C-alpha cells in the first residue's frame, strides 16, 4: 500500500475537522495564521493549503465556507480580533472558495460595518506582506456576490474612480464585473476589457496580459459563447487590443468627415475598423455593420453613421 504524503495526512486531518459535529474555530484560525500546515514549505500561505485540501470536492468546499462564514461574522462582531495575517488569509480563502450563497451576506455586512481597516489606518494593522487587507476584502467581495449591488462600484473602479472606503484599481473592477452573479453581461464585460486595455496600455506585455484577461472571462463562464470581435468594435477597444483577438484580421482605416456637433472620432477624424476574418460570412458582416452603426450613433449624427457603414461595405 502506498504510504501517505505529508499533504495527504494533513488533508485527512482537515477533512476530519470539517466533518466533526462542531469544528473548532480555533483550529481554522491556526491554519489560516500559518500554524500546523502540511509542512511542505515555509512560504505557502495557510488559505492556499486549506483550499487545496477541499478543491474539487463540493461538499467539503461548502463545509469550509460555512466555517469561514462563522469566522467572518466573529470578525465583524469583534469577538475575533484577527492578526493581519489571519484576516488576510481568511479573506483570500473566501476568494478561492467562491461560495456566494454562504459568504455573500457576511461579507456584505462587513462592508456595511466597515469591519476591515482602511488602507493606512493609524490604529489597526491594515496590511500583510506588503498588501493591504482592503485588497483582500475587495477580492472576497468580488468573488462572492449574491446580488448586483456592487455593480456600479466595480464599474467606477474600472474607470479609475476608486470607492472612498474600498478603494480599488481597474483590475479589482474587472474581477468584480466577472464576479457578478447570473449570466454574464457581454457588453459590460467587453466594456470592462476596454477599460483594462487602456489601463495596461504601457505594460511591457500588454497583448499577452490582455489575452489573459479575455481567457479569464472565458474560464469564469465555461461554455459561454462570446463574440469578442463585435463587442470589441462596440466597446471601442484600442487597435492593439482588437488586433490581439486575431492578428490576421483586416484592419481598415476609413476617413470620415465627422461633424462638429458631438463628434467623437477615434483617431482625429479617422475611424479605424478591424474586420474579423469571419466577416466573409454575410450574416456576420451585417451584424458587424449594425454594431458599428450602433456604436457610432452614440456619438455622431446619423448621416455620418450611414456614411461610415457604406464605406465599410465598400472596403469589405
Amino acid at each position: 500500500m502506498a504510504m501517505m504524503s505529508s499533504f495527504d495526512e494533513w488533508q485527512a486531518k482537515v477533512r476530519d475537522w470539517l466533518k466533526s459535529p462542531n469544528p473548532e474555530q480555533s483550529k481554522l484560525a491556526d491554519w489560516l495564521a500559518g500554524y500546523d500546515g502540511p509542512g511542505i514549505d515555509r512560504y505557502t500561505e495557510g488559505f492556499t493549503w486549506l483550499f487545496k485540501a477541499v478543491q474539487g470536492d463540493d461538499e467539503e468546499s461548502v463545509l469550509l465556507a460555512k466555517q469561514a462564514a462563522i469566522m467572518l461574522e466573529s470578525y465583524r462582531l469583534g469577538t475575533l480580533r484577527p492578526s493581519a495575517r489571519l484576516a488576510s488569509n481568511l479573506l483570500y480563502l473566501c476568494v478561492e472558495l467562491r461560495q456566494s450563497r454562504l459568504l455573500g451576506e457576511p461579507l456584505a455586512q462587513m462592508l456595511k460595518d466597515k469591519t476591515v481597516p482602511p488602507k493606512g489606518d493609524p490604529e489597526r494593522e491594515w496590511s500583510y506582506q506588503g498588501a493591504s487587507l482592503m485588497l483582500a476584502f475587495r477580492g472576497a467581495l468580488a468573488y462572492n456576490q449574491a446580488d448586483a449591488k456592487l455593480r456600479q462600484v466595480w464599474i467606477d473602479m474600472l474607470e479609475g474612480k476608486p470607492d472612498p472606503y474600498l478603494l480599488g484599481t481597474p483590475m479589482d473592477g474587472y474581477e468584480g464585473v466577472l464576479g457578478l452573479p447570473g449570466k454574464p453581461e457581454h457588453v459590460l464585460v467587453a466594456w470592462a476589457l476596454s477599460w483594462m486595455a487602456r489601463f495596461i496600455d504601457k505594460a511591457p506585455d500588454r497583448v499577452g496580459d490582455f489575452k489573459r484577461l479575455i481567457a479569464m472571462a472565458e474560464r469564469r463562464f465555461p461554455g459561454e459563447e462570446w463574440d469578442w470581435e463585435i463587442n470589441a468594435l462596440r466597446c471601442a477597444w484600442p487597435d492593439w487590443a482588437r488586433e490581439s483577438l486575431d492578428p490576421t484580421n483586416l484592419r481598415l482605416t476609413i476617413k470620415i468627415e465627422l461633424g462638429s456637433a458631438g463628434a467623437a472620432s477615434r483617431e482625429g477624424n479617422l475611424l479605424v475598423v478591424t474586420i474579423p476574418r469571419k466577416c466573409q460570412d454575410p450574416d456576420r458582416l451585417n451584424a458587424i455593420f449594425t454594431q458599428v452603426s450602433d456604436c457610432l450613433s452614440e456619438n455622431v449624427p446619423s448621416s455620418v453613421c450611414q456614411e461610415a457603414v457604406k464605406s465599410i461595405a465598400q472596403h469589405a
Partner: protein
Amino acid sequence: MRIFNREIVDESEPLPMLVNKLMADPEAKNRAYGCNLQHDPRVSGEREEHFLKVLSPASTPAKRLENFVNGYVQRTTAPDFLNAHNGENLVDNPPDELVTIQNINGLVFFMSKWARDAGIVGFATYSLVFDEQKVAVHDKMQPAKRKAFLSELFQWHVDYSKAVPYNPVWLGCANELIPCRSAPEVERGRRLCERVGVATNKKDGEWVVTLTFASNQLKPIYRPTCLDGATEYHCPSPEGAKAHDGGIAVDLNASDAMPLVAREYIAKYPELIAASYDADHDCFLLDGAPTRPLPEVRKDHLRRLMAIFKEPDATAWIFRVEKSVH
C-alpha cells in the same frame, strides 16, 4: 537529556519542557523539530539564552518556534543569525559560487498583490485567484517571454524586498546539484528542490529557477541551524563538522543513490537582480509529486551522514540522534 547538544540536568526548565512536549507530539514534523532542538550542535549558549528570552508565549511549542522564526529570522531586516552569538557558524571561506532555487509562483503570489496596491501596471493584471495566477505565470514563462518577465520581476523585487523583508536565502553548490539536471525533464525541477530539502508536493504547474550568486555578493554567509528555518526537512550536520562545509541538506529522495551530498548555507536575502541565470536552461516546471514520509526521509539522511562522517564524535552524535528519533 540534551538541549542544543549540551547535557542538561533540570528538565523542568522552559526549554527542556518545550522539547519534551515536541518529542511526545503525534505529528512527525513536531518530533523532528524537537529532535533538532535537542541535538543541534550549532547553537551557542549565548544564542540559546537570547532565543529563550525572546520566545513568545503561545498555546503550543510548535507555534512558539514558528513565532520565533517569523519574527526574528524571516520577517525582519536584522535576522537573528547575523548576530555575534552566531559567530561560530560564520563561513569564512565559502565556495566561490552558490546557488538558490527560487519558486517563481511564490514570488509572484506576494509581489503581485503588493504591486496592485502600489499601482505598478506591469504586475497589476494578475488575478487574486491562485489558479488564475498559475496560468499567468505559465504564460510568462514561455520561452519567448521568459527572459523579459524574469528580468522585470527581479527588478521590482528590489523595491518589494525593501517593503517586505524575508530571510534567509538557502544556498547550495552548483556542482552538487548537477546530477539532478540529468533526471527526466518532467522530474528535474522537483529533484533539484528535493536535493536541497525543499518539498514540492501539490506544486504541479509551478515554476522554479536556479539563481547563481558569487559568494562575495552574499557575504556574510552562515551554516544554518535549527533556529533559522523551523523546517522538519532540516537536520543539523554532525558534531565536529566544519563551518566551512556548511550544513548537509536533507535529500528528500535519496533513494536514487546520488553520488554526492549537497552542502547548504544561508545568508541574508540578496537582491535577485544580482543573480546570474540562463533563462533557457535554469528554469524548471514542477510536477508536484508527493514527498516520501518524513520519518523515512530523516532515517535515510542519518544513514548517509553515517557513511560520510567517520570521526568518533560525529558517529556518536549520529547514534544519539537516531536513538532519539525512535
